[in-house]
């Protein structure tokens, strides 16, 4: 058996650990502030979603599906939610939704401006592109490590990891969309003496909106894909149900929770895609 010589070693991890420790030591109050902010937002969302009566949510989803797609879609989505309720997982589903919603909102707040800056700066784009590629190929588990280090256990690190994992599509597509705005249209906007802000808000963002919405859809789906993994650091919801079922080898419980996740994912996907289609501008 051939062995790699032991004297050739480079303990890169030590330096990373040093940097992380240094960050924690020096930016503790910063991380605390971020934690408080995330928590505050999450609690609001969670409270609001738990407060709405279950049947209103079902009717709401039915109406959305009907208006955005068609009547059978509305019925199907409503039925799916009803089944989740029958499984006794309504409460967990709402928790999962709050987590996903919070992560998506944070992703958009971070991702859209970064995407816009990237579109404006070739240098930033060539720096960000490999980074985004890396983020998307990285196994999602990996994000749990810094999340736990910075925010310990609970829902906040789950949201942190979910956000990092799901932010690349919206950045990427915002950048692409802004760069692809028709050149002559931009010239027209400039020729009327628009300020940079007017160009951005009156021309570029409206023109980019359909593509950005596709990014929102993808980001949401990626956040959904994180829910089981996020539960490993302590987030409550459908994800933790699956996790518990795995640990106990409880097939029935695992199946119900898994199916519920699939249902919720389908509903969110179709509805956000429908909304994205609404934004499409006919040429």
């Amino acid at each position, binding site marked *: 058996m051939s062995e790699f010589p032991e004297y050739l070693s480079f303990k890169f991890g030590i330096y990373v650990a040093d940097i992380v420790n240094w960050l924690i030591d020096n930016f503790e109050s910063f991380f605390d502030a971020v934690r408080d902010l995330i928590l505050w937002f999450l609690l609001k969302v969670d409270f609001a979603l738990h407060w709405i009566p279950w049947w209103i949510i079902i009717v709401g989803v039915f109406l959305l599906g009907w208006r955005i797609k068609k009547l059978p879609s509305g019925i199907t989505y409503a039925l799916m939610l009803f089944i989740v309720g029958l499984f006794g997982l309504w409460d967990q589903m709402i928790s999962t939704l709050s987590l996903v919603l919070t992560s998506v909102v944070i992703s958009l707040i971070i991702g859209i401006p970064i995407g816009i800056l990237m579109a404006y700066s070739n240098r930033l784009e060539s720096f960000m592109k490999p980074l985004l590629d890396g983020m998307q190929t990285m196994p999602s588990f990996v994000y749990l490590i810094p999340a736990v280090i910075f925010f310990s256990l609970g829902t906040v690190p789950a949201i942190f990891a979910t956000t990092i994992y799901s932010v690349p599509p919206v950045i990427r597509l915002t950048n692409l969309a802004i760069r692809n705005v028709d050149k002559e249209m931009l010239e027209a906007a400039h*020729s009327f003496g628009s300020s940079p802000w007017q160009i951005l808000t009156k021309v570029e963002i409206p023109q980019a909106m359909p593509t950005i919405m596709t990014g929102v859809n993808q980001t949401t789906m990626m956040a959904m894909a994180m829910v089981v993994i996020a539960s490993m650091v302590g987030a409550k919801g459908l994800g933790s149900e699956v996790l518990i079922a795995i640990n106990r080898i409880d097939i029935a419980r695992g199946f119900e929770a898994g199916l519920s996740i699939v249902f919720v994912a389908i509903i969110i996907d179709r509805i956000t895609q429908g909304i994205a289609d609404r934004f499409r501008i006919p040429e």
Partner: protein
Amino acid sequence: MTERIKVENLYKIFGKNPKSVLKKLKQGMTKDEILQKTGHAVGVNNVSFNVHEGEIFVIMGLSGSGKSTLIRCLNLLHKPTAGNIFVDGDNIVTYDKQQLRKFRQEKIAMVFQHFGLFSHRTVLENVEYGLEIKNVPREERRKIAKQTLATVGLESWGDNMPHQLSGGMQQRVGLARALANDPDILLMDEPFSALDPLIRREMQLELLDIQSKLKKIIIFITHDVNEAFKIGDRVAVMKDGKIVQVGTPEEILTNPTNEYIKDFIKDIDRSKILQAKHVMIKPLALASLKNGPKVAMKEMEENGISSLFVVDKDRKLQGIITIDDTVKAIKENKPLKDIMKQDYSTTSPETYVQDLIPKASEAKYPIAVVDDTNKLLGVVVRVSVLSGLI
């Protein structure tokens, strides 16, 4: 005529280091050499011209000759590499961002080849755009936009989206959007090139009609010679980033300064631009009322012609005599007055050659070109009208 725009030694070079290339260009390197050696594209190469109040100034040239680059320098969508552009005495090249925005908001507007309409806004919102940028209150800009839309005949289309309109209508929206701002200067970069010929002709007439009311300064780009000469008060011909000739359509047609321009105007339908005064020639000979038939006969024989126009001492046209009648008159000893005929046709000097064609095909004699007082200015020879060999 007041001069409103004055462009002096304008250069625009595209590439990483335009200033260094500018030196080489001034030292006499050609556009092609510069592209090969330095990878820079020369868009505009030492261009100077003036535009006057109320003038339609057409820039024409083949693809790649630098027309779009030049017109985009005029509102600084392209920043010139060197040179000056004076608009009402102000050198706009030196404007800072704030001044430039004000200039674009108030003085100048542009119409684009592919219309450049905002596809996410309704037709009315498109027309409003310039006013919105200037922070004109909503009610007021609505009103102005509606009025402007009416001047291009689209008052009932305001709530539609641009894609619901035909190409011709979309360009009317583009024109309305530019006009809504009430700019002094209108830049039009091949505005009708994307339209089919019939709509195009209609739009040309409409533009001339609008211009006769609004009297803007219009800088109009085209690669179509017929369009250039139909619309332009003056035409500049561009080649390889340079202006090779500027003049009225007539000047360019009658006196093209080089082969490039001759080539360019070869395919033009000249009869639509040229007027009688441009193609008339001086009569080889004339008969005077005070002379007898013998003198007239001698003139005809010497010049090998079979008829003569007769004029009085003020050169007022009296009639025409033929060689046959003159021979008879000599035999019978009659004065010219008795054999003079009136069956010739006359035309004013401003009549288009096109409109002379029916007359020319019937006429037995050359067509007499006379002014309001019936004074003979020249003659148009039939053959030159009919064969188009002007």
